[in-house]
């Protein structure tokens, strides 16, 4: 993050310049190496089933919502911030959409309302952070708290269910035997990737994340760009939440809760993939894949859920440490 980048700027450059050996280039792929090792390990343990079409599809299905929310997190982290409210926002959006459908509103209206809710939460985050200069951590922590509360109010604390099949098909339908959310995740990831890479606003975000002062002196409207990043993150989180509701056929206030931590972890894992150490969508997807493969593989091996948790933390540390060797001072 910017923290270290700024403070040890001189040192970082020295290190970058003084030592670029082949070994380091290899290490820079530490996270990718970690993913490959994981896949190999599980494949060797379960050669017949782990890499089967059915199981790969299964993994893709399982990570599709996380991929979308991690995409939202990537946008914000490209700009050098955090968004702790992505999970809560997704739950609220799913709950609002579900509640409206149960209240006899059309699927279209309900989805639009859910998306609008996400947009609104993102906008609030953006205003608090870009214009009122609150720290991203405290602002999104606060909105997260309020938004979870709102989600409880919308669901009255229960699990909403019984949405029309046109809706649940979005999450459970299949095309060529592949579940719909996988397509959505791919499409949204591609859009975010293209947006970050090929649009003017994407360039501005990168510039702000790279060096906010350089960006400002190059004519970038920093505040507006940050506002936009948070707003978009809210919107994308809402898509994730609505899809999750469709996928589960139900909506509750905290069903997207764990996506927040996992999304941050995925982006951090992905940041180690590229040389500049910035958040990037490709890396995020590798992070998502690591999380998905880890959980599926450990499940298939029948590893106890608690041991799984211990191992998850260790693998994250191992992957990041592996990669951080190359950028010691960053």
């Amino acid at each position, binding site marked *: 993050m910017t923290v270290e980048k700024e403070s040890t*700027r001189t040192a970082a*450059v*020295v290190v*970058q*310049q*003084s030592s670029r050996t082949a070994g380091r280039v290899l290490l820079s792929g530490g996270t990718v190496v970690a993913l490959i090792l994981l896949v190999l390990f599980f494949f060797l343990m379960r050669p017949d089933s782990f890499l089967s079409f059915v199981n790969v599809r299964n993994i893709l299905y399982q990570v599709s919502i996380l991929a979308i929310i991690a995409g939202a997190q990537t946008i914000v982290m490209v700009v050098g911030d955090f968004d702790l409210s992505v999970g809560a926002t997704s739950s609220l959006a799913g709950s609002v959409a579900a509640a409206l459908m149960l209240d006899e509103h059309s699927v279209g209206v309900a989805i639009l309302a859910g998306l609008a809710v996400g947009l609104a939460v993102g906008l609030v985050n953006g205003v608090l952070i870009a214009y009122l200069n609150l720290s991203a951590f405290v602002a999104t922590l606060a909105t997260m708290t309020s938004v979870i509360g709102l989600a409880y109010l919308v669901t009255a604390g229960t699990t909403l269910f019984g949405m029309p099949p046109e809706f649940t098909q979005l999450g459970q339908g299949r095309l060529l035997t592949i579940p719909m959310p996988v397509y959505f995740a791919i499409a949204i990831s591609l859009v975010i990737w293209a947006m970050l*890479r*090929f*649009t*003017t*606003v*994407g*360039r*501005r975000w*990168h*510039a702000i994340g*790279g*060096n906010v*002062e*350089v*960006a*400002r*002196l*190059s*004519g*970038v*409207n920093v505040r507006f760009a940050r506002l936009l990043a948070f707003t978009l993150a809210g919107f994308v989180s809402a898509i994730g939440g609505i899809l999750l509701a469709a996928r589960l056929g139900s909506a509750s206030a905290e069903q997207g809760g764990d996506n927040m931590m996992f999304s941050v972890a995925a982006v951090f894992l992905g940041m180690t993939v590229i*040389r*500049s*150490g*910035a958040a990037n969508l490709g890396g995020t997807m590798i992070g998502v894949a690591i999380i998905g493969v880890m959980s599926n593989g450990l499940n298939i091996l029948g590893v106890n859920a608690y041991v799984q948790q211990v191992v998850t933390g260790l693998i994250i540390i191992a992957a990041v440490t592996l990669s951080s060797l190359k950028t010691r001072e960053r």
Partner: protein
Amino acid sequence: MTLAEGRPEVAASVSSTAPALEAVDIVKSFDGVHALKGVRLSVAPGEIHALLGENGAGKSTLIKIVTGLYAPDSGEIRREGHAVGFANVRAAHHAGIVALYQELSIVPTISVAENVLLGEQLPGRAGIVDGRALRRRAKEQLERLNQRISLRKLAGDLSPVQQTMVAVARALATDARVLILDEPTASLTDTEIREVFAVLRSLRNEGVAIVYVSHRLEEVFELCDRLTIMRNGETIVTKDVADTTIDEVISTMVGRSAGSLYPERGTATTDVVLTAEHLEGRRVKDVSFTAHAGEVLGIGGLAGSGRSELLRLLAGAQHYRSGTVTVDGAPLRRRSPVGRVLDAGVALVPEERRSQGVMLGASIQDNVALANIATISRAGWVSGSRIAQIAKHGMADLQIKARSARQPVGELSGGNQQKVVLAKMLARRPKVLLMDEPTRGIDVGTKAEIYRLIRELADSGTAVIAVSSELPELIGMSDRILIMHEGSIAGEVPADGADEELLLSYAYGRSHEHEQAE
């Protein structure tokens, strides 16, 4: 202390002792840029030794090597005759070598007293700080500098001058036997400078070896015993101050006939492109001037005279309190952001390349594209081919040496980094190009290229306004020179045939004498 204050006695004692600090044949390069090419420096106990040289000569790098911040590629550091090598700043501290680094001042969120004693063994026992003793010791240090700053205040609340004095006090508070000060007085006023000098003299008399880096030669001649001049990473000469003159030092420092470096001057037009009227900033006071199409307007002055701020005000990077800026006859709105000013045709190549000019982690083409987002995009979508094109043009025009347009800027040499900043702003085809220290940290060959570029731009009708601290450069590249002194314009001189001494005297605010003398 039996030694009387004064130079001769000290100089005598110098010759009889082993050097307190010696740097022998230090070589250091940063990925292609040879910052130091075999530097020698020898400082005796009880002397104040000036380290002089142009910007980028390698002074700061030498200091960082001596204090363990960088490792030298080759060469040796000796402390009282013994070879030493420090893994970090703390190790150097333990060996009695302490530096006050350039442009590094205070911790804003802690008290003045703590800043003064930062990094020192704090007074107290069993890990408990004795606050009263802490403040007493800090107070003693500040009193030596004649500073009456409230010790409990947050350092961030002090004025810049006070902050610098606190930083100086911190360096002086160490019981260092070798004290290195890298441009400590750059942002100080005369009164504070006096106080600093008094303390340095008394430390010298206590036998401390002091290395003093400064661009203010008058100071050097007043304070120092000996001087070492560096140029382009080499030591040129070490002399007793008594045996030389400012003129000799300047010509040694510059080391070449300036003429050949600079292209022929063009013919400036009389079309006014930019007018500044009664600009008031933080330091800038009532500045008015005009810049014409096709001219290179140089701005000189001492460090801290407000040159950079003036450019920042013009570029929209900082908002002016009052005054007007007019570009091509249209007044800019006050508080216009950089983007708006850029659109009006005014572009800034800022002073601090690393923190303001380039994104080190991003590629050349991404850096160039940043200021040209409108040209490289249609309906919000960026065209990869336009970026490549714009980057290719920039790289060709400016002869940027790089593997490809996709190479990260952080891997380029300083000169090429500077060219990337230029390429970024030139692609905007500005009517007015503001350049702050356009050649800082750039080697001689590259400098000539940049001067040529500046001239080409001017010839194509751009008004170039360039701030420089190097007088030969200022004279060589400009058509007309404005000299700033304490925020105002102290004088205006046509560059052709301008005399360095005259410029300096304006810079020191002694304009009247000279005007009368002429």
